[in-house]
């Protein structure tokens, strides 16, 4: 009983792990100076200076440089000792960091070549639908009320229609609202964001220049006057070239990363030594 308790003491764990580490350390560092020489070459100093300039916008003073070298040495000593003990190997953060670096190298690798015109037009042709430019709308709206079916709304719609016909200031009509009374040169998808999809779709169809309604939004019924409208267009490549380049590069980047892994993975055999539990939905 007492022994069991003794074996459960965290202190003992520390002692044991300490001993084990010490043993591993002796075994793995046979006293050579190879792993224990830290050379501060001109290259190292240049690097430290470059990093300092990047971080602070100026060269380090003599005192700062000494400090930089001292912390470089500090990092090197403890890092090397840690690596000798294999402390990097069971560290998930180190592992993932290294994985990211290799993925970035793969991505960088792929991105050294700019897309050619042929690349872009091929990509554009296959993905035309993604580059359609939404209709651009300029309109005023009067908010009549929440529900489109109530008697009150029907009455309000009639009153509003009459007032608008007589040329009243639209902003003085209808119910007060925080919705914008006017949207200028706004793409239809942004109209959707504010008013809902069916409202935006309706505005793409109504006659330009007239007050029409009621038209339903996510909030209720409106009178609307579209004063200017550029219909949606399937553009030529030249008009959306930047966008196409961005999308093309993004796809290439992701493909490069996946390809790199697939290739490396193919060189490994993975054996799972236990049966896997079924995943719940």
């Amino acid at each position, binding site marked *: 009983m007492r022994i069991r308790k003794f074996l459960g003491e965290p202190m003992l764990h520390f002692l044991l792990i300490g001993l084990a580490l010490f043993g591993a350390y002796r075994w793995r560092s046979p006293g050579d100076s190879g792993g224990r020489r830290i050379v501060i070459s001109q290259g190292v100093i240049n690097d430290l200076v470059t990093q300092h300039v990047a971080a*602070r*916008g100026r060269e380090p003073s003599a*005192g700062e440089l000494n400090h930089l070298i001292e912390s470089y040495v500090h990092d090197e000593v403890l890092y090397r000792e840690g690596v000798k003990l294999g402390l990097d190997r069971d560290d998930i953060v180190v592992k993932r960091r290294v994985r990211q670096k290799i993925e970035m190298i793969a991505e960088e690798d792929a991105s*050294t070549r700019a897309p050619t015109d042929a690349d872009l037009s091929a990509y554009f042709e296959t993905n035309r639908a993604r580059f359609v430019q939404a209709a651009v709308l300029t309109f005023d709206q009067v908010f009549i009320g929440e529900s489109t079916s109530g008697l009150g709304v029907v009455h309000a719609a009639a009153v509003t229609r009459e007032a608008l016909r007589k040329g009243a*200031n639209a902003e003085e009509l209808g119910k007060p609202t925080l919705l914008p009374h*006017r949207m200028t040169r706004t793409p239809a998808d942004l109209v959707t964001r504010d008013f809902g999809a069916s409202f935006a779709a309706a505005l793409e169809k109504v006659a330009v220049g007239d007050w029409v309604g009621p038209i339903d939004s996510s*909030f209720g019924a409106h009178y609307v006057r579209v004063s200017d409208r550029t219909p949606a267009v399937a553009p030529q490549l030249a008009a959306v070239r930047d966008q196409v380049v961005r999308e093309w590069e993004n796809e290439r980047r992701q493909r490069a990363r996946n390809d790199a892994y697939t290739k490396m993975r193919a060189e490994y055999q993975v054996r799972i030594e236990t049966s896997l539990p079924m995943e719940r939905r």
Partner: protein
Amino acid sequence: MRQLVIGTVFLAAACGGSQSPPGPQATPATTAAQPPPAVQLGGPPSNAGTLTADSGEIQPADPAKFHKEPGYSPYAGRRYPERPYFGDEHVHTAWSVDAGGSGATLGPEEATRFARGEEVTSTSGQPVRLGQPLDWVAITDHSDMMGMITEIKGGNPEMMADATLKRWRDMFNGGPVEAKKAVMELVAAQANRKLPPAATDPKFAKSVWAKTTTIAEKYNEPGRFTAFIAYEWTSNAGGGDNLHRNIIYRDNKDKADQVLPYTTFQSENPEDLWKWMTEWEKTTGGKLLAIPHNGNLSNGRMFALTTFSGDPMTKAWADARQRWEPLFEAIQMKGQSESHPSLSPTDDFAAYELWDRGNLTQTPKKPGMIAGEYAREALKNGLKVEQDLGTNPFKFGMAGGTDTHNGLVAAEEDNFFAKFPSAEPRADRWDEDAMNFGPNRIVKGWEMTAAGYTAVWSTGNTRAELWDAMMRRETYATSGPRMIVRFFGGYDFTPADATRTPAVAGYAKGVPMGSDLPAAPTGKAPTFLVAALKDRFSGNLDRIQIIKGWLGKDGKPQETIYDVVWGDKDRRTFVNGKLTPVGNTVDIASATFTNTIGDPELITVWKDPDFDPSVRAVYYARVLEIPTPRWTAYDAAYFKIKITDSKVPMTTQERAFTSPIWYSPK
């Protein structure tokens, strides 16, 4: 042998190398124990005078100039912000050490595309898309960056003058086998510090930071979508007291690339960050602001009434804090920091999404700490500091962010992809540990909050316009829904102003959220024009409250909460001075609700009935939705599971908090 294994695991955990790195604390905090040499960016705080002078020119879009100028055309001269732009100022991706370490695979490019409304595949392999795209985003990966790979630019003549670089470039273009060899050589040369000088020239060095800014630049489309350049400075003082700040750039890549982000390897003291910001602006001619977050996890330090080192505040310190930190992130996935029931015992809605047991590593709180953590208390205490020192260091507006660590700004209750890849939608996530730092230092999965976003009343959707609006604090925080909220203060608002476009009267007769009231005319009390419109996909509105903090004659900060307008007016009354609840239509089993209670839109003019012109005061509005299903209810319905633990909230009352309006006696 068995003991040894246990010991190893124990040690590994103690070193922070556990299998599931728990939260942003993974960023090394200990390195700063050794202070950098005395040389500091920005020099001693004697700059404070300059900073105050600067703050005049920093607000190019002065709300006082938003007045509608008279003329025939009702639209000419209208320069005020007409709509709020919703975004997230707090996003981590795989490029943040703790996010990458926990397995996140989505980098800043995927995160930005997702915020813009594109569909992506989450780290756990699930396709996901936002219900509604955001208008802007700031990817804020931790500044403690990896040193990375220098790019060999294809064919850059200056670089190609170097034989080695040219040879590598030829190898890159010489087929896969050659290219791989080139990569190996390049990596080895970098590791051994044998890169050709041309490759380490800062002109060509392509750091991770430069990659980050390139991505922001690519996806930043003025007028349509703003991708800010940003980073997070992640100070965990004393090993977990959350003093993190998001740094938001007003400018573009050309300025941002001139200086690397400030890291906590350099300092954990926010004063040093402010000095760095001062120096950065001087060097580049650009503009920066900082947004602190998670006061609730700072163990009393976020709004402590002393400086970082525990000294009394000085005027210079207060000036600098006000100057650099115009906003505070009051809600995010790790809970809200707006108000706490123990500080506001009369507030029926303060007990909401609380993470109040410890700091970031769940080191338990001691009595008194909570007073230094919450926005409302800080706004009140700021009045006192202003009275004593002449500057209010806590003159901040409200922001909301997700602080997601999987690159997904999915803060919608029915689309909640949570904070870490391990917490992406799965049947068991509610019952697992979101954070586990040992016995009694656990945060459960269900405690995660599906929040939040920042709404910015900006004149347009560009970096400069949004940033300027943030700087003048014309913002509000929401727990997720895109409700539209207006809040104006002045002395002459009348009920008639609540019948038409509120902004017209609001800007003409008063000041917007985030501003100061002018001096009170004799005999007049402040009036407030406040209005809210529901998110078209979310619940109706329960009520709008105005929260007033003021300084008592005894110098003690006080608060009062006023219900100023509410939905279902005809059926609700006041019982014992309290507005009766709006009701609840949530069917938890199916995770549905109906908008048959509450109102879609609320508007009113309210006059402070308890105004004393000799007393400092601060006012802000809080908008509450009717109860709707919480993400836990959507999970239960989707995964067909029973959540039986009665501690787990299944409904929520989404909300918005506006930036305050301040009153100071002249």
